[in-house]
């Protein structure tokens, strides 16, 4: 990634007149020089290009945190960059403490379903938070993230912003899973992958899909097990492209309301997942066979 794209990804540099762009670049350059000196503790006048680029990314990310929702160029040009950097670092300190709390909550609500990818990723995020360097590598993301979430639409986020979103999604999935019986969930997962404990897979997805299917046909859905009769009803209810979208949306609403959720994030997460599920079901409508999506006979 070029330095220009690195900077403009994080800072509101678009459409700046060239003179202001150059002014901003020179300010960032000076700030980068100061950061580099701190990083080397005065023991080295030079660093590798790779190190300088990492320090620059960290700088830009921290400044973007300080700017927050105020993405105007004026603030970036009018404020003292060092003060803005310090403000960003203070905000990151607060966010780091919040994320440690959030991580603890995810750990406490983790499903009682063994999976090495889930376990190692959660553990790794804890290590990342303990060692997070908000001064020189603030933009870094946990390297350990292997567990696949149901919805991953925040790849462009950096640093703690990315980590926060990942943990929020993990928590939403934990909460969803907690509404289903863990023994039944394990049975269902075993049907999908016999060695789910060590398989690269999402634990919440299949139980939720089954729940959506049952909710769509008005059946109790927390049991998540689908029999032949249920499958026929689901195929009839959702096996038409005109009915599919409405059926899924109605099922999501029912699940959200009946399970007593009040967390707007969970609803958003469910709706985002529905966006992915609809085309997946749509792709097999022609065959009339939805057994690859809704798993029955567990």
């Amino acid at each position: 990634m070029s330095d220009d794209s690195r900077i403009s990804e994080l800072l509101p540099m678009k459409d700046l007149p060239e003179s202001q762009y150059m002014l901003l670049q020179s300010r960032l350059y000076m700030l980068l020089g100061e950061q580099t000196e701190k990083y080397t503790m005065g023991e080295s006048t030079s660093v590798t290009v790779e190190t300088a680029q990492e320090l620059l990314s960290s700088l830009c990310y921290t400044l973007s945190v300080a700017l927050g929702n105020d993405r105007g160029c004026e603030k970036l040009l009018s404020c003292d960059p060092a003060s803005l950097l310090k403000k960003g670092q203070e905000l990151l300190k607060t966010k780091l403490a919040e994320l440690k709390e959030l991580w603890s909550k995810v750990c406490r609500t983790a499903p009682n379903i063994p999976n090495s990818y889930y376990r190692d990723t959660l553990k790794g995020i804890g290590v990342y938070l303990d060692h997070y360097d908000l001064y020189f590598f603030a933009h870094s993301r946990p390297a350990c993230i292997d567990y696949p979430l149901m919805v991953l639409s925040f790849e462009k986020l950096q640093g703690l912003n990315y980590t926060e979103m990942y943990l929020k999604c993990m928590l939403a999935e934990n909460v969803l899973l907690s509404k289903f019986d863990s023994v039944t969930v394990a049975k269902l997962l075993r049907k999908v992958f016999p060695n789910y404990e060590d398989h690269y897979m999402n634990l919440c997805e299949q139980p939720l899909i089954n729940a959506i299917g049952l909710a769509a046909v008005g059946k109790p859905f927390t049991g998540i097990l689908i029999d032949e009769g249920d499958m026929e009803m689901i195929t009839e209810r959702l096996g038409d492209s005109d009915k599919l979208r409405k059926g899924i949306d109605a099922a999501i609403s029912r699940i959200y309301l009946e399970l007593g959720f009040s967390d707007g994030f969970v609803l958003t997460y469910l709706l985002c997942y529905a966006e992915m599920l609809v085309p997946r079901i749509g792709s097999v409508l022609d065959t009339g066979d939805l057994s690859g999506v809704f798993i029955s006979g567990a």
Partner: protein
Amino acid sequence: MNNENILSLQGQAQIAAAQDELLACNSISSGFGLSLSEAEAWELAVCRVKALEASGRVEFGGGIVPKIIYAFCDSPYIEQEDYEVTLAALQESFYYFKTEAMERFSDDELIEFMLEVFNGPVHGSAEYLIGTSLEELVNSAKKGYDLSAMDSAGDLL
């Protein structure tokens, strides 16, 4: 929009500043019969930019040559006629080996080693310093060698 890489600003902004810093060093080095002309200082500053680029490094501020000058100016093996050329060689090798040694040595440690070998076993030959001792130093660094534990630069010849 100017597509100039922010890190390449160092080339433009620093050459003149570096030249001034190098000329300022004459106040010390001239006591040992060594000084840089404006043209020589400019050339060294330009060489610095090239050496940094070649070694994949970025430097803020005036650069390492003033430190090299202060360390080497009293060397019995440097004379006015080869002052600029020797400084250029030492500068280039400094950046190269700093990267090759994977940042294991601070600037002062590396310069101290270079000076000790330059004034000692290699008798002022920058070429020999670069081709032997510095290569050995880097190889030792890659193996986790502790410079502070070595007994004089002679260990690495």
